């Protein structure tokens, strides 16, 4: 994990230094899109070749739905509370 965070920090520093170069910045946004496609494709490959997971995909999907419903509902409620208390009169 130290590797991931330092790689990201290195990227941030480089990005800060390069920010005047608009062409590099917009090329980077495109690269991110392709990197995400690559990453998702690779995740798909590694999961698709795992029979155990492929056989339980529908139950994993239901589980995912339950977790996101909880996460979103909880966040909406705390967002509602801080809005009422701290932001409403702005």
């Amino acid at each position, binding site marked *: 994990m130290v590797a991931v965070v330092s790689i*990201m920090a290195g990227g941030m520093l480089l990005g800060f230094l390069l920010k005047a170069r608009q062409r590099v910045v917009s090329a*980077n946004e495109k690269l*991110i899109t392709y990197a995400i*496609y690559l990453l998702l494709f690779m995740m798909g490959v590694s999961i698709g070749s795992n029979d155990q997971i492929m056989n339980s995909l529908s139950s994993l999907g239901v589980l995912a739905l*339950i*977790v*996101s419903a909880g996460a979103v509902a909880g*966040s909406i409620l*705390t967002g509602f509370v801080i*809005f009422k208390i701290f932001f409403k009169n702005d």
Partner: protein
Amino acid sequence: MRLKGSVIILSFFTMGLLFGRYTHINEWLSGIDYSSLSLYLLMFLVGISIGSDTRSLQALKNMNLKILLIPTATIVGTTIGVWFVSIFVARYSLKELMAVGAGYGYYTLSSIIIKNNHSDALGVVALLSNVIREIITLLLAPIIAIYFGKIAPICSGGATSMDTTLPIISSASGKEYAIPSLIHGIILTILVPFIVTLLLSL
């Protein structure tokens, strides 16, 4: 419009699934730690993107401490919500479900960290769950803003409030909430790798 992005991403994932299932691509790649390598590449590029984004630097300069309440609300709310639904889930522990929730919608990064540090199966749950979070926000932000106030769509969007869900949040809650939404997303994006790893190591 933005939904198109999620659809494309899901199709790449599905294509990978089919290739993994019906071809020998996984054996050709054996010995290469391709998921870690693609994660490093993505993190590096995301770093460049955050560092070079004058908008986000500007937003950080204008930061009023009150804005920090919003990501705090998202983290606390997600924790409470996941804790509540964990009562109904026998397959995974609270800690594991919390790690899934702590992706805050940032599905690419959270799912791969969970896959590498825990298991493929929980990685899939994280991917789907965080994609669903983004889709729910894209679809419901206007309704959420009406019934639960202008901050709630930001919290619902989680880390995606800085990019994919930012346009819908700014139209649902008003332009004055675009900067808070951006800052909220940036803070959560930076926190995702730390919180997910921390939860998995407990």
